[in-house]
């Protein structure tokens, strides 16, 4: 690609051949106003605001910089008298066309235009016919749901046959590109389609914010790169767009990338698959998803985070600050109907939110607890501090959250109805916001993970450790370790400790270089074995394998895998399988001895 050198406003600018004057100027930091230009769309040259004066020798010409190619030796003046005069009149014309459009008003202000000398036909019109909506829909989205109809002043942006034919031409995919690219806010999606735009809810922001189909999951993501959500990406829906690929300076985007299945041979596996948040909407009386301002702990976390959707302000759904906040402990935990276990972390984070609600929003805080479990370093002290800060602690299980007001004071509020065991009666506490400390539960795919790795789950759904006291990070399956909340609800210090423990265990296993086998494992007498495969079928640990050995089908045991449970011996029809130290003869002998002895 060769380069061209031109002069813009007295400044020497070099650019790649093929770029336009506008792009070259922008790269050099010279701003030229535009209305119908967008770098993701092919240049249109419709609004004419970007007109500049170019000089070649003694001749000068007025051209639109968004389209005119940067040529070697060109002299460009973006603010000559002619340009300014023309631009001002064009702005006046547009001000007459769309007097309320903010983008035009801003331009007018910039160029010192207070009013327009021209007649306005429709004072409420916002559309300046820049065409970006139609162009993005055709060039990038690829469905052409809207386009120009009519000629001259009749020109307008419409859907096909809108209002004239009783057929639904609704090819719009409600992606909202037109509305977001429109410089004046003239596009209303409801005029184009009956479909409702569904913002893609950011998983990290707990649905409080939206995200694009291509996004970096969160600021501290590892790896800190963008990922593409194929189910939402317009390119995968229509075959067009690919703006991200064009914009990416590092050429990092590859639409043809496919999932790769990689096989790695390892000696140990550490399972750290985490937890799921219990969904409080299965407890209808708490009003989650029914009332706007009943939120979970994780949602409050995002509100209070300075990098979150509200920049650290605790806000209700309508944008106001709450004057009062209620925190409800043990939602879904310590509950016979849902999870009997305690989720361990909630008491402490509830205290943290109580403190933050006071600090960030100055709200009155009511904390509804059953017990305050402040077991760790500094935890009890923090509890005391919160109560000194004026957090109201109410001991009792919340019965329901409702918006049906009985008194005037309750109108417009969410009323938390709870027992107060210390007072010995039911209380009604009106608040603006209710935070539910919902349980930590095993992940929804824990069953599949357990099957895959042949580890077991406890009755509470979390993975089974080898010994609850003495071996909390190992599993009965050799070489598979578990750490963190996949094993049980844990807070951060404990999770970190567990992580280090599993790492240590794994390393010690690897560094040993050898694996100690179980003594009482299965063995096969190949002379009797017919290779029927029943042992292979029944083994949970995939230890027996039937294979051809010297022309005969026999089973053989992988001694590293065999745990010695004995199921294979039970189903073997020929008795070829026996468990060392627990052979059939040995047990039968025991039984005989026991029955004879009287």
């Amino acid at each position, binding site marked *: 690609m060769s380069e061209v050198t031109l002069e813009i406003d007295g400044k020497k600018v070099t650019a790649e051949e093929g770029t336009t004057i506008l792009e070259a100027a922008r790269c050099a930091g010279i701003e030229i106003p535009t209305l119908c230009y967008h770098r993701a769309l092919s240049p249109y040259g419709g609004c004419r605001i970007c007109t500049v004066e170019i000089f070649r020798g003694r001749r000068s010409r007025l051209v639109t910089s968004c389209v005119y190619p940067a040529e070697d030796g060109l002299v460009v003046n973006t603010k000559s008298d002619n340009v300014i005069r023309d631009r001002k009149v064009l702005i006046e014309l547009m001000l007459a066309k769309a007097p309320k459009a903010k983008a035009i008003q801003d331009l007018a202000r910039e160029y010192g235009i207070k009013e327009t000398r021209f007649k306005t036909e429709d004072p409420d019109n916002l559309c300046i016919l820049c065409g970006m909506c139609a162009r993005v829909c055709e060039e990038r989205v690829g469905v052409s749901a809207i386009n120009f109809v009519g000629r001259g002043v009749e020109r307008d942006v419409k859907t096909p046959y809108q209002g004239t034919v009783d057929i639904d031409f609704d090819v719009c995919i409600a992606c909202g590109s037109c509305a977001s690219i429109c410089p004046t806010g003239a596009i209303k999606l409801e005029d184009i389609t009956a479909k409702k735009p569904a913002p893609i809810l950011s998983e990290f922001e707990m649905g409080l914010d939206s995200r694009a189909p291509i996004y970096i999951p969160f600021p501290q993501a590892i790896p800190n790169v963008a990922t593409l959500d194929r189910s939402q990406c317009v390119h995968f829906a229509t075959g067009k767009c690919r703006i991200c690929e064009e914009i990416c300076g590092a050429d990092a985007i590859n639409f043809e990338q496919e999932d790769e299945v990689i096989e790695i041979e390892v000696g140990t596996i550490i399972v750290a698959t985490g937890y799921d948040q219990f969904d409080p909407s299965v407890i209808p009386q708490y009003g989650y998803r029914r009332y706007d301002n009943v939120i979970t702990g994780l949602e409050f976390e995002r509100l209070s985070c300075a990098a979150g959707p509200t920049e650290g302000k605790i806000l209700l759904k309508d944008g106001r600050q709450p004057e009062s906040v209620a925190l409800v402990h043990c939602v879904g935990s310590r509950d016979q109907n849902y999870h009997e276990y305690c989720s361990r972390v909630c008491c402490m984070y509830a205290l943290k939110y109580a403190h933050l609600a006071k600090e960030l929003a100055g709200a009155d805080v009511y904390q509804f607890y059953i017990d305050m479990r402040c077991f760790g370093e500094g935890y009890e002290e923090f509890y005391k501090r919160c109560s000194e800060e004026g957090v109201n602690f109410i001991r009792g299980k919340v019965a329901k959250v409702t918006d049906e007001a009985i008194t005037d004071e309750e109108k417009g509020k969410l009323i938390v109805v709870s027992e107060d065991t210390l007072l010995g009666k039911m209380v009604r506490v009106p608040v603006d916001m209710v935070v539910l400390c919902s349980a930590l539960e095993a992940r929804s795919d824990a069953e599949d993970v357990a099957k895959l790795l*042949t580890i*077991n789950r406890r009755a509470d759904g979390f993975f*089974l450790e080898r010994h609850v006291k003495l071996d909390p990070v190992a599993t009965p399956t050799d070489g598979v370790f578990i750490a963190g909340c996949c094993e049980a609800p844990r807070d951060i210090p404990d999770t970190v400790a567990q992580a280090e423990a599993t790492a240590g265990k794994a390393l010690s296993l690897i560094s040993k270089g050898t694996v100690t086998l179980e003594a009482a494992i299965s063995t096969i007498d190949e002379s009797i074995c017919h290779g029927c495969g029943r042992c292979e079928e029944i083994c949970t640990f995939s230890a027996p394998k039937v294979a051809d050995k010297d022309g005969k089908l026999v089973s053989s045991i992988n001694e590293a895998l065999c745990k010695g449970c004995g199921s294979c011996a039970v189903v073997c029809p020929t008795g070829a399988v026996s468990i060392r130290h627990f052979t059939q003869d040995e047990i039968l002998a025991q039984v005989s001895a026991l029955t004879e002895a*009287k």
Partner: protein
Amino acid sequence: MAEFEPQIIAFCCNWCTYAAADLAGTSRVQYPANVRIVRVMCSGMVNPIYVLKAFEGGTDGVLIAGCHLSDCHYIDGPTKCDEAVEKMRKTLHVLGLEDGRLRREMVAASEGVFFAKVIREMVEELKKLGPSPFKTKMEAPA
């Protein structure tokens, strides 16, 4: 005639029930001495032949006890045991043995008291059922 004292052969899994029996002992929980324990690694290790052998030998009742479903060291031993017991019951039925003579239990390692209770209950049951029909030797015709 001395009161009939039934004999129970109990197949106990190493990790749970055997430990429970141990615990019952160390806790000084009293339970009848009618039981004879055979330690297996897992309740799924119990081969029907063992049960038949036990009845053949003249025992009055057989207990197969192992871990609870989610506690099994070998993941799904209890499930396999349950299936085997189902099949066994049919065979025993054909042989003329009452249902109450074969009992299937899940006893965790901590459930020493429960283990004792199971044994007590089984002894009571067997006392009611009487001696195993296999105990009576067939006399050759004179």
